[in-house]
């Protein structure tokens, strides 16, 4: 049973009707193939129209869709011989950040991701993708490991943000994020980050200070959630759709602002309607930006990465 978002209701109704008609046919009733075909066309048209003009808030909902492929789905689909690595070597292993080694198109790589989980149990296990300091320290450790062995880094970012908790603060959440950003910037190896769903603030940039930043068509990437922004600036969380608009957090906007390098188009109706196609498209795009970077040495990569971030948002600086 597909999970439909509020704005997808008309599509859900049409698809429900199609399903009903098909059941009638299967049960030996009258042949309704023609009717089903018509409805299918209608549903597809509606889906196309709806997804062609998603508002930033609707994209936020799509980015958070429970059936959207998650970080580990990409790892399983794109990375062979995956060996998960665990722990920050100081306190704990944080399952909100997944890390490991594997092969991407034959090349040994280090992989990082923020994992939200798919069902209740795994969501709790991964703390809904909200990492604690241990997660960012694990990320940093694996980025440094990648640097030592010349392994390109691939990250898959999908997080509402760093976990806001008492112990997280006591153990230096801010410092852990800062060091993870630093590790990304310093890595003497190619680094490609992909924002696959939600790119939430510091928790996202901690794994995305990369040479190339890709974003899925309906992913969002922002300094604060629309709800958080609305409750602070509008003093009303219900203004989240307005805040989502103002924050310019969609892939299209961020591409225009030159904060992301490329947008990966999603299957019709969003990544969750065809995860396999989505993951294959991400694999192709990651490879197309990674391959040219493989020829560059560490010093060049680091220097260019710095230059890239120093130039960000700077158009018109005098």
């Amino acid at each position, binding site marked *: 049973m597909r999970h439909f978002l509020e704005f997808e209701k008309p599509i859900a109704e049409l698809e429900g009707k199609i399903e009903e008609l098909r059941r009638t046919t299967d049960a030996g009733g009258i042949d309704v193939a023609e009717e089903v075909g018509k409805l299918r066309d209608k549903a597809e048209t509606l889906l196309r129209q709806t997804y062609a003009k998603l508002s930033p808030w609707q994209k936020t909902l799509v980015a958070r869709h429970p059936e959207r492929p998650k970080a580990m789905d990409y790892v399983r689909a794109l990375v062979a011989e995956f060996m998960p690595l665990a722990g920050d070597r100081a306190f704990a292993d944080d399952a909100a950040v997944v890390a490991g080694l594997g092969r991407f198109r034959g090349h040994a790589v280090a992989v990082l991701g923020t994992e939200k989980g798919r069902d209740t149990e795994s969501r709790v296990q991964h703390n809904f993708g909200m990492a604690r300091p241990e997660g960012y320290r694990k990320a940093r450790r694996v980025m440094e490991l990648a640097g030592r062995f010349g392994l390109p880094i691939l990250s898959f970012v999908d997080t509402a943000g*760093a*976990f*806001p*908790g*008492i112990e*997280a*603060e*006591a*153990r*230096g*959440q*801010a*410092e852990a*994020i*800062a*060091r993870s*950003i*630093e590790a*990304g*910037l*310093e890595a003497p190896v190619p680094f490609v980050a992909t924002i696959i769903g939600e790119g939430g*603030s*510091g928790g*996202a*940039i*901690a794994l995305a*200070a990369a040479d190339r930043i890709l974003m899925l068509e309906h992913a969002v*990437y*922002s*300094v*604060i959630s629309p709800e*958080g*922004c609305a409750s*602070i*600036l*509008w003093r009303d969380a219900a203004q989240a759709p307005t*805040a989502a608009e*103002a*924050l*310019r*957090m969609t892939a299209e906007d*961020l591409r225009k*602002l030159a*904060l992301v390098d490329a947008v990966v188009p999603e299957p019709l109706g969003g990544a969750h309607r065809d995860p396999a196609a989505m993951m294959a498209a991400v694999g192709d795009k990651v490879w197309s930006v990674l391959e040219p970077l493989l020829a560059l040495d560490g010093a060049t990569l680091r220097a260019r990465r*710095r230059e890239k*971030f*120093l130039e*960000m*948002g*700077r*158009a*018109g*600086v*005098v």
Partner: protein
Amino acid sequence: MNWITDWALPKIKGLIGTSREVPDNLWHKCPACEQMIFHRDLERNLHVCPSCGHHMRLSAQGRIKATLDEGWSRIELPKAPADPLRFRDQRRYSERLKDAQTKTAMDDAVVVAQGAIEGRKVVVAAFEFSFLGGSMGAGVGEALVTAAKLAVLQDAPLIVFTASGGARMQEGTISLMQMPRTVIATRLVKEAGLPFIVVLCDPTTGGVTASFAMLGDIQIAEPGALIGFAGARVIEQTVREKLPEGFQRAEYLLEHGILDMVVKRHEMRATLGRLISLLREKLPPEPAEPAPELVALPAPEPAEATEPAKPA
């Protein structure tokens, strides 16, 4: 000013109650002990309450004055694109920005200055909290990158006094990108073999703490300063627990190993001078004067007195 305004007014005010208006630019009430303090006394005392020692907020300009030898100069900063998103909430960001600029006579929330501490040259960047909560957008990022480049050029340590609510939401993801940008700034200073010293002042939170402000070679904070990543209210709502006493205060961070020291404002200049000397002068400069007694605040004692642990 005479003794009447200096000493008598608080008492008179005490007698007649709080209903009468006192110009708030003349008298300040200490938020900790509620003592009324005459503005000149407060200024003379670097905005530290003379009666209870509470550290109140100090302007960026005030910090630089209190830190540097006379003869320092303010650095002109590159102008970042203003309002890149044409952001508007209940008001236009461009208007908020203009108001803040008028109020503070600054272009953005950071002042950068070059000068010296006890003759040792330094570059200082100081946050102005009253400029949109010291929030970090492209202008602040630009200021810190400029300060770092200047420090390298001058072969001088970089000291940053922070006071910031975090990222400037009105600049969206561009403000988020100031985190990596300012981290790069710290790398420039460190790679040149120069000390990068952070002084965390009240309050420092969000994207500022989670970037350059936690990467100092030396991490100092002022007493009682609120320092953290997530806001207390967000944490309370998330974990549904009462926050521990002193949570996210400088002393709490010191206890948890996040800071090197908590230093009173009056000892800040001497502390910075000593640190820079120790980091950069292998032998004491001639002639060796007797060093003044200077101690950082120790970590607070644990609540229960405990016996020293016995080796297992």
